[in-house]
C-alpha cells in the first residue's frame, strides 16, 4: 500500500510542478497578455481595464492560485481568436489524436511481435542480424521523412490512398480508416523498432529458462513454445516501453497531424503557436503533459501488478 501511496504523491508533485511551469511560460512571456489581447489600436486605458479584468495586476502567486483552481474545475480559459473555451477545443480534437495513436500502436505491435519472435528464435542468425540492421537504420528516419516517402509512394505514384484530408468516423468507417492508414503507418514504421528490440532481448532470456528446455524435451513444437510459453513472461518490459515511448509518439503525432491535415490536438497546438493564441498553447501543453504523466503512472501501476517483484524491490530498497 505504501508503494502505491508514494507513487501517487510523486504523481501529484509532478503534475503540480508541470502546471506551474506551464503557467509561468505564459505569465512571464515578454510583453503583456493584455497588450496582445487588446490589439494594436487599444488605448492605454483599454489595456489598464483589461489588465484589471484579467487580474494581471495581482501578485503572481495569487494569479497562479486562481488559474490552478480554475484548471481543476476544468476551466482552461478562452481562446482569444475563436472565443472557444480551450478545454472544449481540445476535447473536440482529442478523438482524432487518440485514434491516430491507437492505430499506430496496433501496427507497430503487429510488426514488432513477429519480428522479435523470429529474431529471438534464431538469435545471431542472418535473419536476426538483418532485422537488427533494418531496425537501426529505421531509427535514423525522422517521422516527417517517412511520411513524405509514404505519400510519394502510396498516394502519388500508386494512387492507392488519399495523401491528406480526414473523413470523420460518422461519414463511413472505411474512408475513415483509409484517412488514418498512412498517418498511422508513418509513425508505426519507425516506432516498432524499440518495441521489437526490447521484446527480442527478453525473449532470448526467457528461452534459456529451464521450463522451456523441459517443453522442448517433451517434444513441443517450436511455434507453440514461442507463442504460448515464452511470449507472455517476456512481454513485461514491452509494457513499460509502450508507456515510455508515448512521449515520442505524441511528438510524432504533432508533426504527422500537420502533414496529413488531421484535425487533432497536435495540429491545434501548432496552429495556436502560429496565431500566438497564448491560452490555447498553454492549455494544449498542460493537457498533453498531464495526459502523458498519467499514462506513465498507469503503466507503472500495471507493471507492478503484473510483476510483484518490482513492488517488493522498491519497498525494500
Amino acid at each position, binding site marked *: 500500500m505504501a508503494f502505491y501511496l508514494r507513487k501517487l504523491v510523486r504523481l501529484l*508533485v*509532478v503534475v503540480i*510542478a*508541470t502546471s506551474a*511551469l*506551464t503557467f509561468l*511560460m505564459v505569465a512571464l*512571456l*515578454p510583453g503583456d497578455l493584455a497588450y496582445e489581447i487588446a490589439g494594436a489600436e487599444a488605448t492605454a486605458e483599454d489595456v489598464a481595464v483589461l489588465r484589471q479584468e484579467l487580474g494581471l495586476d495581482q501578485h503572481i502567486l495569487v494569479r497562479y492560485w486562481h488559474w490552478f483552481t480554475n484548471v481543476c474545475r476544468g476551466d482552461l480559459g478562452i481562446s482569444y481568436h475563436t472565443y472557444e473555451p480551450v478545454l472544449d477545443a481540445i476535447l473536440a480534437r482529442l478523438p482524432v489524436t487518440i485514434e491516430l495513436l491507437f492505430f499506430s500502436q496496433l501496427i507497430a505491435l503487429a510488426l514488432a511481435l513477429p519480428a522479435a519472435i523470429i529474431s529471438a528464435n534464431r*538469435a*545471431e542468425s542472418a535473419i536476426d542480424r538483418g532485422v537488427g540492421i533494418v531496425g*537501426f*537504420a529505421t*531509427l*535514423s*528516419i*525522422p517521422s*516527417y*521523412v517517412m511520411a*513524405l*516517402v509514404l*505519400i*510519394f509512394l502510396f498516394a*502519388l505514384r500508386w494512387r492507392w490512398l488519399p495523401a491528406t484530408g480526414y473523413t470523420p468516423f460518422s461519414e463511413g468507417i472505411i474512408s475513415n480508416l483509409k484517412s488514418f492508414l498512412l498517418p498511422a503507418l508513418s509513425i508505426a514504421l519507425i516506432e516498432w523498432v524499440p518495441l521489437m528490440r526490447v521484446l527480442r*532481448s*527478453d525473449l*532470448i*532470456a526467457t528461452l*534459456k529458462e529451464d521450463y522451456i528446455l523441459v517443453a522442448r524435451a517433451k517434444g513441443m513444437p517450436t511455434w507453440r513454445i514461442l507463442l504460448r510459453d515464452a511470449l507472455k513472461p517476456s512481454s513485461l*518490459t514491452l509494457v513499460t516501453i509502450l508507456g515510455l515511448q*508515448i*512521449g*515520442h509518439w*505524441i*511528438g*510524432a503525432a*504533432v*508533426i504527422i497531424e*500537420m*502533414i496529413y491535415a488531421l484535425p487533432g490536438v497536435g495540429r491545434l*497546438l*501548432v496552429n495556436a*503557436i*502560429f496565431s500566438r493564441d497564448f491560452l490555447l*498553447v498553454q492549455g*494544449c*501543453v498542460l493537457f*498533453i*503533459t498531464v495526459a*502523458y*504523466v498519467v499514462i506513465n503512472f498507469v503503466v507503472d501501476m500495471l507493471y507492478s501488478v503484473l510483476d510483484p517483484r518490482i513492488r517488493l524491490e522498491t519497498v525494500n530498497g
Partner: protein
Amino acid sequence: MAEAVKEAASFSIKANTKGLGYSFWLPVLWLALVATGAGSAHIWKLPAFDQMDWDHPAAPPGARSEISVSVSEGQKIDLPFIYRLGTDTMGRDILTRLLFGARISLAVGLVAPFFGFLLGGSLGIFAGYFRGRFETLVVAMMDVILAFPGLVLLLAISFYLGPGVINLIAALAFLTVPAFCRVARANTLTWAQRDFVLAAKAVGAGHLRIIVGHILPNILMPMLAYGMLLVAVMIVAEGALSFLGLSVPAPTPSWGGMISEGREVLDQAPHVSLIPAGVMFLTVLSFNLIGDRVRERNDRKICEL
C-alpha cells in the same frame, strides 16, 4: 533481464574484435564530407542560396541554365551553369542550399548538446558526488522537465523565446540537459565509490581535484557516446521545427525547411524533397552509428576491467 544484458554485452564484444570497421569509418567519412561542405560552402562557384531562377523551377538534377546570371559573392559563374542536384520550387540551386543548410544543422546539432553537456553534466556530477539534498533537488527538477513530451516542450520553449538561431539553440540545449544530467549522475555514483577516489580523499585531495582529476576522465566517454546520439536527435528535432516553419526564418536554408518546401512538387519533382531528406537521413544515421560504436567500446572496456 540480467540475461538480456549479458546477451547484448557478448554480442558487442564479438562485433568488436575486428576493430572499428567500416561501419565506423564510413560514417566518419560522410560527416567529414558534410562538415567540409558546410565550412567551404561560400568558396565554391555556386549561385547564392537565395538566387532564384524562374526559368528553371524544380528543375531535375543536371539541368542547364544559360540565361540567368548567377553571382555568388562577387564571383562570376561560367555559363552554362549546371544545377548538379537540380533546383527547388523557386529555382534555387539545391546543392548550394544543402551546403548552407548543413551549417544550420551542424551548428544546431553540435552546439546545443555542447551547452546541455556543460550544464547537465556538471549538475549530474555534483549531484552524484555530493549527494544529499542537492541531489534530491536536481533529480526532482530533471524529473519535472522529463515529464513533458520532448517535442511539446520544444514547441513551448520556442514559442516562449520566439524565432532565431540563438533561441533555437537555447531551446534545444535546454532539452538535452536532463539526459546529460542523468548519465553523468549515474556514472558518477559508481565511480565515486571506487577505492582510488577514497585514496585521493585520504591523501587530502579537495573535492574539485577529485571531481576534475579522478571522476571526470572516467565519465567523459559514456557521456560522449550519449552526446553523439543526442546530436542525431537534435538534427531531427531542428528539422521538425523547420518542417513546421518554427526554425530559422526564410530564405536561410535548413534541411528540414527544404524537405518541407519540396512537398508542393512531390508529385512532379520528388527530388526537391527527397534529396535533402536523403542527406539528412545519412547524416543522422552516421551520428547514430558512431555513437553506437563508441558506446560498445565503453561497454567492452568496462567488461575488461
